[in-house]
């Protein structure tokens, strides 16, 4: 599951009415604390302690030198960077168009940014791999065959970028939508255009600076999605970071648990940064 759910839950000041004497509440909180904390704590201990060596941070020290870590992590980062750029470049003009005279476009955008949430990722991979296979047969005699092959280049599989762009659309769309809601796009664009700004200038010097925090939000959510995505990459046969974690777990269980904990912390940091940025604005 690579879904990323927005975390903005308003916290009201007044507590809800208390039911009963509070014993039930304490039991619920205790059980929840045990269920959620115990695996985390035990997994963390597992990475730094074992019977043979006692306490050691070796598992974390081994990460950088582990075979395949650097290449798979760099691949995931490169895929994330490409996905972020493409998602923003495609989505921002379309979302501006909705506000600048094509309101009929809105339901279309809503639909294409909802479908990837509904369709299970594994069925999406099945569709992609069928398309690639049939496409290779159909295009064998044409110059497009070469395009199809380079899409699947192992060093930088652009087919994954395309898939991630689709999967990231829902999150990027919602983040940008919140940002665009807060500014008066029509007035800003008209003012800039009347003062003689070209369209690229409008985008780069008027719209984007005003959307800084929601652009960052869209980028963060996309980054988190790409760094954690397993299903598509694994089934298309590419060694991205999550796929590599599973591969390495066969030979070094401690290392894979250490990486799992680190990726949880990373997700935590990303989301904290996001909610901080969101709170500062409001």
């Amino acid at each position, binding site marked *: 599951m690579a879904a990323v759910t927005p975390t903005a839950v308003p916290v009201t000041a007044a507590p809800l009415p208390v039911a009963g004497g509070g014993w039930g509440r304490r039991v619920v909180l205790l059980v929840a604390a045990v269920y959620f904390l115990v*695996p985390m704590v035990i*997994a963390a201990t597992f990475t730094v302690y074992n019977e043979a060596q006692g306490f050691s941070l070796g598992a974390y020290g081994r990460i950088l030198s582990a075979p395949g870590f650097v290449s798979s992590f760099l691949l995931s980062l490169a895929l994330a960077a490409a996905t972020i750029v493409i998602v923003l470049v495609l989505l921002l003009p379309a979302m501006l168009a909705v506000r600048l005279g094509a309101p009929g476009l809105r339901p279309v955008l809503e639909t294409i940014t909802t479908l990837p949430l509904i369709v299970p990722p594994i069925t999406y991979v099945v569709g992609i791999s*069928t398309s690639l296979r049939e496409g290779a047969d159909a295009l064998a005699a044409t110059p497009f065959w070469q395009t199809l092959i380079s899409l699947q280049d192992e060093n930088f599989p652009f087919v994954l970028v395309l898939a991630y762009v689709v999967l990231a659309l829902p999150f990027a769309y919602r983040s940008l939508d919140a940002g665009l809601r807060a500014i008066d796009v029509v007035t800003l664009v008209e003012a800039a255009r009347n003062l003689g700004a070209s369209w690229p200038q409008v985008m780069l010097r008027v719209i984007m600076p005003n959307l800084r925090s929601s652009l960052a939000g869209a980028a963060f959510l996309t980054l988190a999605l790409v760094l954690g995505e397993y299903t598509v990459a694994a089934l298309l046969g590419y060694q991205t970071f999550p796929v590599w974690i599973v591969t390495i777990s066969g030979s070094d269980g401690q290392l894979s648990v250490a990486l799992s904990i680190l990726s*949880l912390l990373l997700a935590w940091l990303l989301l904290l940064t996001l909610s901080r940025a969101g709170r500062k604005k409001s």
Partner: protein
Amino acid sequence: MTERKARRTWGKGWGPAVPLLLVVAIAFGIPAVMLAAGAFTEKGAPGEPSSYGFANLAASLREPYLGTLLSSVQLSAVVAVGGALTGTFLAHAVLTSKSAMLREAVLSVSGVLANFGGVPLAFIWIATLGNSGVVTVGLGLGSGLLYNFWGLAMVYLYFSIPLMVLVIAPALEGLRPQWREAALNSGATTWQFWRLVGIPVLAPALLGGVVLLFGGAFAAYATAAAMVGASVPLVTLQIADALTGNVLVGFENVALALSLDMIVIALLVMAVYLPLQRRSSRWLR
């Protein structure tokens, strides 16, 4: 003439969206069409052309495939109902607490854990309760604890309960203290308040949460795949096996049909969710 005019107004200002629509058509449209076409294609004998029909879909709804589909639905249903109830109790316990810090902490942790699916989740649990996990060995619990239906449900609840907390918290906060006071002052018991006011107000959000949790558990693949050795037959694992060539030749198209079954189930579930979400959003104001 009218057609041309209609097209012009329809397309007015759509220019900036063309690249996006084009990329979505290629990256999402083509796979969707190929999936659907493949699901209805019956491969002929070698050298013979294939034909269209319902044989794959029919096969995907027979054993052994039907079993995996049902077992996935069962697991998702258990996780959805269990997660929704636990998540609601947890959210209520946290929101009624006097400590604002506890509330803040639980909601922020829920935000992280709700997204904590996939591979890392599997490894955290394997380290704890796997065959050579710390708790398993320490307490001498025996192997296979994690690798059955209930083990998998327990792992899935780890991201489902926090998701439910996030979904239900706004609705719980929408329950005004005044309503309860009004009910109690009019002579209602606590139970009557919940039965006649609380639960009806929460119902859309509750059902919406159940649906959302079902969808998440139903589509989950990475966690189950990383827990190698799990003996639970799941439709996602079955499809992945077919895709990576772990099955008899010629069954790829049954995998396509199974995928189509999954999409239909997911769409049905969403068809329940969207109107519910609209109803529950009334209470969020």
